[in-house]
């Protein structure tokens, strides 16, 4: 109950509204209590599966069945993490309920890092260049081209995915990093749109002053616009990184080979390889945790940025 007054004071509008006192206070606090209960319950339902992922990952697969009603790890062990990271012998893995098949998550982790990093750096940089031209330069055909870019936002991905697969195949880029990265390396309509909105808001005087001092457009872009847009560029980079890290469909099509296989694809394969009857749940949860961890760490440090940017994608 102590949270109620504290919460009420954080929102001045609520305080103001209460002052007329049109309703009996007893009913209001009952409603608020119910609202808070709902909120807490929702938060619990959001967080519990993450706890369950950790709890299972710390369990011994063979002991899970007998302890399915326990909220603590069954037969606490780091074995699942060890076998997923290839640190345990086949015999050890089988003893704990693993398949004994070779999984090499270090490799997939590295591949995910390469793919997500390349995509993010390329896409954000090239989209920033384009967004600058759309926002700050005047040239014939600018608005028409921008409109064409924006129209592409509405095309469902599958429509371009199949022909893009053929294109990547014809270029001989199947099972290569380049093949996975290429379609989103140079642009996505959303990134151009996102950055253009910010560039439009930068005062023109800054640029004009620099240009009178003899700076060209490129110098203005690199020394004034980019540094001034550090915040939106960080936000967009985060969103791009997360999207790229989590992508499954495209890397599944063009990057099945072990050498370029990313974590999401590896997880799908790991799941389908689990032996019939009883899958290696602890191993699977350890693997999902490893796959989710980098994003969760990023979120822990820069979460506020992502949260505050959400409204942007829906409302212009």
């Amino acid at each position, binding site marked *: 109950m102590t949270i109620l007054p504290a*919460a009420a004071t*954080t*929102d001045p*509008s609520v305080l*103001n*509204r209460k002052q*007329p006192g*049109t309703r009996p206070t007893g009913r209001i606090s009952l409603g608020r209590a119910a609202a808070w209960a*709902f*909120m807490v319950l929702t938060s619990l339902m*959001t*967080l519990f*599966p993450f706890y*369950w992922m950790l709890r299972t990952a710390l369990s011994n697969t063979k002991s899970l069945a007998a302890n*399915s*009603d326990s909220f603590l790890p069954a037969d606490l062990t780091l074995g699942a993490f060890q076998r997923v990271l290839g640190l345990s012998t086949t015999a050890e893995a089988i003893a704990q309920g693993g398949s004994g098949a070779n999984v090499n998550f270090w490799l997939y982790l590295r591949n995910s890092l390469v793919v997500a990093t390349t995509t993010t750096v390329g896409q954000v940089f090239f*989209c920033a*260049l*384009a967004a600058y*031209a759309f926002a700050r*330069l005047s040239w014939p055909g600018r608005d028409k*081209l921008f409109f064409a*870019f924006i129209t*592409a936002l*509405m095309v*469902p991905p*599958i*429509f*371009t*995915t*199949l*022909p893009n*697969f*053929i*294109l990547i*195949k014809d270029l001989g880029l199947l099972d290569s990093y380049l093949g996975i990265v290429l*379609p989103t390396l140079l*642009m996505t309509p959303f990134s*151009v749109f996102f950055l253009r909105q910010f560039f439009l808001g930068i005062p023109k005087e800054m640029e004009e002053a620099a240009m009178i001092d*003899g*700076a*060209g*457009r*490129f110098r203005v872009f690199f020394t004034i616009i980019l540094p001034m847009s550090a915040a939106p560029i960080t936000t967009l980079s985060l969103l791009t990184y997360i999207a790229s890290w*989590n992508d*499954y469909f495209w890397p599944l099509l063009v990057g099945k080979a072990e050498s370029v296989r990313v974590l*999401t694809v590896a*997880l799908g394969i790991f*799941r389908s390889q689990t032996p019939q009857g009883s899958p290696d749940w602890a191993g699977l*949860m350890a693997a999902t945790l490893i*796959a*989710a961890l980098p994003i969760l760490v990023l*979120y822990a440090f820069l*979460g506020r940025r*992502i*949260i505050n940017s959400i*409204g942007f*994608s*829906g*409302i212009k």
Partner: protein
Amino acid sequence: MVTLTSRTQATLPGARRRRRNDLRAALVFVAPATIGFLVFYVWPAIRGVYYSFTDFSVLSPPQWIGTENYQELLSDDLVRNAFWVTLEYVLINIGAQTVLALGLAVLMHRLTKSVVVRGTLLLPYLVANVVVALLWFWMLDYQIGIVNQMLDWVGLGRIAFFGDSAWAIPTIAMVNVWRHVGYTALLIFAGLQTIPTHLYEAAALDGAGEVRSFFKITIPLLRPVLAMVLVITVTGSFQIFDTVAVTTAGGPVNATRVIYYYIYELAFGRFEFGYASAISVVLFLVLASVAFAQIKLLRAGESDLS
């Protein structure tokens, strides 16, 4: 370097000269993105339409067959099934997600603007579809999943969430509600913050309760935002694939063979690229009309705020 020197000369003569230099710089600035746009958006869109009129198995060059793919599509029970199953998924997913997200957004707006609360709700959205799918596949396991364990405690029977054809689609829909509801709630929350607080104050002065101001102020003023959110989420949820791919793989007996998954199977399992492209074209047309109808019906572009 060339632009740098010409710029110094150009600053004095005035606007005409500057504009010409802008064009040259602009071309360099937009070139990479435009190449990406042409090669990976425009060209494949054109190719996609072309493939849909061909018999194309990837192994040999496409053969023009006119509208045969589209005729076949009309009598393909699996296509019809895929559209129905997807529709069922979209209705459950969007219905539950929108109502829940609206509730959460209003609560966040009225009770607490805490970043921690918003951060918690957004957490599932940051994790890959595949991770979410596997996590719930485990939690909903018939034998030893924690959810079935809980159902047992309460005295309700166990449910084969992914194995029972009546449960499979609702289950997949709810798993994705869990992943997306926080994101949708934040979108709506952003919209709520644009509603002036004095409206609520005035309503409270006039004796309107919480429920009344919700229906008389919040909902009408939120309409354009809700409409945009609906267009985005409905179009997005038609593209369900990852969850199906790692949990049920279309089963049991076609119960979860959604459009994306069917297209995937046709193209990469049976190498019927032309036919798969034809279904993609149809899906594109369906999505475009759904979005168009939504924008018209919900009057997405107009605001009641004025």
